[in-house]
């Protein structure tokens, strides 16, 4: 029997035994903690984003309903109302309020969790 044949006949069981041994791909001890922290961040951001867009959608819905009702009841004065709302500082104030609300609801909580 040459060396190679000898190797083949003896090696099968040993090879299988070796293949069953732990290859040493270990994760860090705090893997689960880091993972749970990441999951909590994702959950929180997801929840807060949903909350923000729900409130935003509700406000926009109420405004649209109000405008439609006003237009239906008082067509003549609607243009005046429109110019009152869209001229001046009103749009800037609305965007600013939404920005603050978004920062408070989503971004600040995200930053706190990332600390």
């Amino acid at each position, binding site marked *: 029997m040459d*060396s190679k044949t000898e190797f083949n006949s003896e090696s099968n069981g040993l090879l299988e035994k*070796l293949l069953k041994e732990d290859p040493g791909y270990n994760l860090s001890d705090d893997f689960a903690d880091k993972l*749970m922290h990441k999951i909590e961040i994702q959950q929180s951001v997801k929840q807060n984003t949903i909350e923000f867009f729900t409130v935003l959608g509700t406000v926009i819905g109420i405004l649209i309903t109000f405008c439609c009702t006003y237009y239906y009841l008082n067509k003549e004065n609607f243009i005046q109302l429109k110019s009152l709302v869209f001229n001046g500082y009103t749009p800037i104030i609305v965007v600013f309020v939404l920005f603050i609300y978004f920062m408070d609801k989503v971004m600040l909580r995200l930053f706190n969790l990332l600390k």
Partner: protein
Amino acid sequence: MQETNLIDQVKRGNTHAFRYIVANNQKLVAHIVGRIVLDRDEIQDVCQEVFIKVYQRINEFRGESRFSTWIASIAYHQCLNHLRKKRRLNETNIDDLPIEHFQNEASPDIIFDNNETKRLLKQIVESLPLSYRTVITLFYLEEFSYAEIEQITGMPEGTIKSNLFRAKAILKEKLSNTSLNSR
């Protein structure tokens, strides 16, 4: 607590129960990810992505297979996605690798007897084509059946058997060559 209970708890939103699921399965995931991704710096991140996906999709688990099979399937596909992203799916053919890669200074008498041989075998396994090292890992290391490996990878059973046979033949040949070369 039993695994089915833990799964139910997580489905009901108990993140604390998920921590136990992670602890029970992190070795399985680390082995699969380690063998497929290979890059040690990326193993931790990919494992995290796997468990996040498990958490997000746990409601889809219906108990039709073992939970470990389901997790292994997610880990396998996540690894493939990761490799695709990195455009590394092009396999390095084992025959293209320089033979020096597999040579060591070990005496043939102590082959299989020391850590150097284990290290060498690990190196050879890691240089196998992806499908070979996947089936080797799932079959020997994690002791999944052919049917379970089929569920995890989507490979037909015949392909799994032939990949396993070829992988073992390559491993034996390379180890044998190393042994003979070092005589």
